């Protein structure tokens, strides 16, 4: 926790409304992004962010300042979003394979069939290489591509989802992601790698369909 955090924490504890309004305005967009990656709709994501702020108020006197204030708030958001997401998905069967794949240690980044086999001309090299995207900036900024990305993130195992939300949706550092999630730097990188590979694959599929019309 730095000096800015200490000042903010003192202001919040003393009941300073401006400090509260400001912190809600500053952090809610980021919290909303993370929440959107966990729950099925915008409305539920907003509720999760609201619940998070209420939990922050309940916990703020007990907060010991061992991590940055922001990291602590993200941790509360993740817990709230996770339990809410689990409740929303309660009717779906929890797949054993999916639980096993949580860390993704043995998942390849790219479908192995896209590489040449042992008898190929160059084993391990591309058989079906990715094709360059035309006008990527415009294409990926459209609603369809954004939906494809968010859906892909929602479909990830929870820890992969948390890491990519913190790192790539919010743009926080590896260190902050490790703090918020309580994982090692190496583990964080593995989770991020699996998550990014799947989002890229989802976009590749989306662009292919988009081009085919």
């Amino acid at each position, binding site marked *: 926790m730095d000096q800015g955090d200490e000042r903010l924490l003192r202001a919040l504890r003393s009941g300073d409304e401006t400090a*509260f309004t400001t912190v809600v305005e500053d952090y*809610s967009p980021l919290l909303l992004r993370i929440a959107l990656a966990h729950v099925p709709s915008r409305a539920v994501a907003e509720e999760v*962010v609201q619940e998070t702020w*209420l939990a922050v*108020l309940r916990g703020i006197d007990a907060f010991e300042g061992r991590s940055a204030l922001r990291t602590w708030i993200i941790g509360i958001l993740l817990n709230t979003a996770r339990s809410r997401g689990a409740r929303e998905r309660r009717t779906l069967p929890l797949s054993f394979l999916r639980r096993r794949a949580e860390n993704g240690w043995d998942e390849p980044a790219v479908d192995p069939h896209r590489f040449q086999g042992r008898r190929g001309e160059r084993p391990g090299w591309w058989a079906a290489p*990715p094709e360059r*995207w035309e006008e990527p900036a415009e294409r990926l900024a459209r609603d369809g*591509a954004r939906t494809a990305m968010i859906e892909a993130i929602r479909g990830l195992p929870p820890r992969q989802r948390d890491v990519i939300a913190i790192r790539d949706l919010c743009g926080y550092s590896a260190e902050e992601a490790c703090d918020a999630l309580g994982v090692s730097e190496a583990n964080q990188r593995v989770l991020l790698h699996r998550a990014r590979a799947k989002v890229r694959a989802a976009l590749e599929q989306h662009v292919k369909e988009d081009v085919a019309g």
Partner: protein
Amino acid sequence: MSAVGAQMTCREMVELVTDYLEGRLGGPQRARFEAHLAICPGCQAYLEQMRQTLHALGRIPEETLPAAAREELLQAFRAWKRDR
């Protein structure tokens, strides 16, 4: 997996993309990675798509809570202040 020093395959390369982007590849690995990249259009496209994906993720628009929700939170803050 081929031995260190041998030419990198595309299959290996895609597994090292995150380490590469995070600046976590050691000197020799990085040199093999870049040597492969220089001669492989498929991997160039893959890396380019990965960068474009990250860029797009960072640009999903930031929205905030609706005004009504923020007002409710302010009321909750006042109640919290009163009750403690």
